[in-house]
């Protein structure tokens, strides 16, 4: 028996009255993008209606209707997720925050900013810098919404120094599935005040409540930064240098790695050849990028010297200095294009976003490459060497989709088991959605998974918020919706 109700004409009209005709679509008028995120292999399901909300009050009113009618609600930001998190697997409505994109207020005395959840990360980052401050979280997908970043606890390149999105959320307004509006957190830096529901909400992927406003912590903008590029013979040698870099008291902002084939693909696709492929007469097979920040050139130079010595000791072919704005722009543009390039050059694509201890990065990549050879797919990878967060893409240009899925399932089963053996996590920043549920369950075990499902039930007894995601199981599969 169906657990949820279908959207009737009467209810559709009620929802349309809340947001207005211009911000409501149903049936055939729904744009196809609302059926999927950036990893379409995890399925495309069109909702029955899309509501583009503009305020907390509208979202509260929508939730009152959907709660009363038991209609599933899937919240969506910019749709840049990679685990099917915003796919409305049970139909119902997609509630988009894309119109809630205003930066509301800076509080410079307390170094924080109040925003709506649909503000894009790139817009917040640029606006903060224009105000002389920095919003440190820096996930690779700059056109994601900050609300989406909070819902997945996205990390990004600067996590080594500054931490992840969670560390910058001070307070939020949340609409519960019932339509009730609550405030979580305060604009202060410490709390020892009962269970921390703010942090429960962060990373909950729209399954517990709907974030409608955020207060985020800012920091003073560093005056100077420099990125040093260390080319190595291969990925194993490159990764082996990371512990020495971390121990050198450099306080790096980021430590990134990239393998040569991704660099070649990026250069071919974008025409940006900024990564040197031959360094001092030797072919580079992998690269480490280290970004240092400080208040002056004088402060940075001794750190650059120390890193140069480590590079020599660990077998880097050279230490290259990315100092000018032009070089920085070119290098980081190439780095930011990796996923776009992989997507453009692969007909079929699946991904892993595991985190392993830093000393296990190289053996894990070797294992995945062996698996890929065995199953006849190819691997492209890059990621955050400083924190062990790897973005591994399984790709094929010649397999049929069903065959690809079968093979990648076997590869993933083995790889996530290896990740667990190495003491790793299923996801570092892309989250669980409905694509990685099985691996989450295997990773945390039945007791923890059971606690998660009970928490979900406390917040959302009718399971109308983003059903089928994270730890919510649809008995009988999506057909039972």
């Amino acid at each position, binding site marked *: 028996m169906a657990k949820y109700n279908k959207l009737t004409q009467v209810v559709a009209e009620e929802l349309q009255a809340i947001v207005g005709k211009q911000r409501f679509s149903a049936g055939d008028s729904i744009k196809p993008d609302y059926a999927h995120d950036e990893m379409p292999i995890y399925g495309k399901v069109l909702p029955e209606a899309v509501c583009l909300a503009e305020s907390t009050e509208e979202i509260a009113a929508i939730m009152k209707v959907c709660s009363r009618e038991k209609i599933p609600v899937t919240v969506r930001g910019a749709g840049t997720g990679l685990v099917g998190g915003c796919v409305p697997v049970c139909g119902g409505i997609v509630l988009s925050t894309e119109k809630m994109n205003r930066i509301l207020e800076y509080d410079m005395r307390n170094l924080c900013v109040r925003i709506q959840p649909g503000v894009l990360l790139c817009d917040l980052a640029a606006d903060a810098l224009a105000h002389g401050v920095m919003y440190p979280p820096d996930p690779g997908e700059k056109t994601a919404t900050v609300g989406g970043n909070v819902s997945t606890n996205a990390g990004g390149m600067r996590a080594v120094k500054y931490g992840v999105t969670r560390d910058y959320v001070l307070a939020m307004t949340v609409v519960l599935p019932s339509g009730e509006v609550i405030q979580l957190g305060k604009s202060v830096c410490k709390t020892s005040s009962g269970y921390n529901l703010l942090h429960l909400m962060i990373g909950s992927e729209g399954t517990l409540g709907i974030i409608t406003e955020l207060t985020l912590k800012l920091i003073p903008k560093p005056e100077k930064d420099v990125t040093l590029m260390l080319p190595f013979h291969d990925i194993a040698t490159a990764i082996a240098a990371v512990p020495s870099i971390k121990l050198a008291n450099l306080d790096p902002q980021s430590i990134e790695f990239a393998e040569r084939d991704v660099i070649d693909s990026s250069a071919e696709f974008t025409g940006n050849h*900024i990564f040197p492929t031959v360094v001092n007469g030797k072919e580079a097979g992998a690269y480490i990028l280290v970004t240092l920040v400080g208040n002056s050139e004088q402060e940075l130079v001794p750190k650059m010297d120390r890193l140069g010595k480590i590079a020599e000791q660990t077998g880097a072919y050279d230490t290259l*200095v990315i100092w000018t704005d*032009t070089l920085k722009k070119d290098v980081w543009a190439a780095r930011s294009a990796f996923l776009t390039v992989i997507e453009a050059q692969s007909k079929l694509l699946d991904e892993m976003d595991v985190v392993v201890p830093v000393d296990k990065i190289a053996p894990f990549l070797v294992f995945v490459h062996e698996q890929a050879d065995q199953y006849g797919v190819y691997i492209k990878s890059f990621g955050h060497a400083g924190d062990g967060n790897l973005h591994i893409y399984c790709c094929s240009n010649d397999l049929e989709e069903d065959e690809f899925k079968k093979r990648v399932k076997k590869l993933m089963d083995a790889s996530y088991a290896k990740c667990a053996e190495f003491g790793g996590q299923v996801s570092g920043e892309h989250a669980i959605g409905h694509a990685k549920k099985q691996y989450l369950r295997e990773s945390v075990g039945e007791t923890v998974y059971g606690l998660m499902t009970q928490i979900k039930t406390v917040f959302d007894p009718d399971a109308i918020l983003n059903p089928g995601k994270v730890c919510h199981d649809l008995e009988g599969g999506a057909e039972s919706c």
Partner: protein
Amino acid sequence: MLKILCCIKQVPDVNLVKIDPETGSLIRQGVPSILNPLDTNALEAAVSVKEQLGGEVTCITMGPDMAEEALRECLAAGADHAVLLSDRAFANADTLATSYVICSAARQLGQFDLIFCGKESLDGATGQMASQLAERFDASLLSGVLNICDICEEQKTVLAERELENGIEKTEATLPCLITVEKTNFHPRIPNLKSWKNSRTAEILRFNSHTIPELDPSQIGDPGSPTKVPRTYPPEVGESGLILQEGSPEKDVDRLFSLLKDVL
């Protein structure tokens, strides 16, 4: 040993420049200055020639004191010497006056075999400097060079491939020769730590209007510039297009016809 000159310019990062809608002038305040991107390709070509055949590369620019930073960038990327021509009397120079000052100063440094220039600057984008400098240096000119195939110091010739509208031309020219390069094959390099550190403290040779011998005051700065810019204004931007995403090609076409019908 080849003596190579590379002419560079520091320009505002035009991506970040705005134009005052009332006065029409460029708002340069707070806009970072960068080494002209196409000059980085010219420098790479110059340094590559030096690495293959020996010699030394001197970078030269005319500009305010802060242009020193662009010269240090060139030193980091492989130039051996840097020369800054800076004087208030040089201000408001057009390409004619600039090429006069650069050539007059460069003559103090000896006879150059090769002179490299970027194709054009990001800000003015006249593309006139190369031909003017070639004339003043009495050098042959190879523009739009894709590859430098051969340089014969004995015969004093350079053989290069040039990009034309309808193909590639292989041309030989005599030294001294001024070369402008296409960016395709001359990707700027990232300096290494040693080179970068040296560049931060390296000496930069400076000239002003008094230290360049026999400089004619009527040919420099504003008096020496026949080009006058009466007005600068942003290009008119047309209305942005409409992307039809109605859910299917059939619906897109229906919507398109409906829009056309409204217009007609």
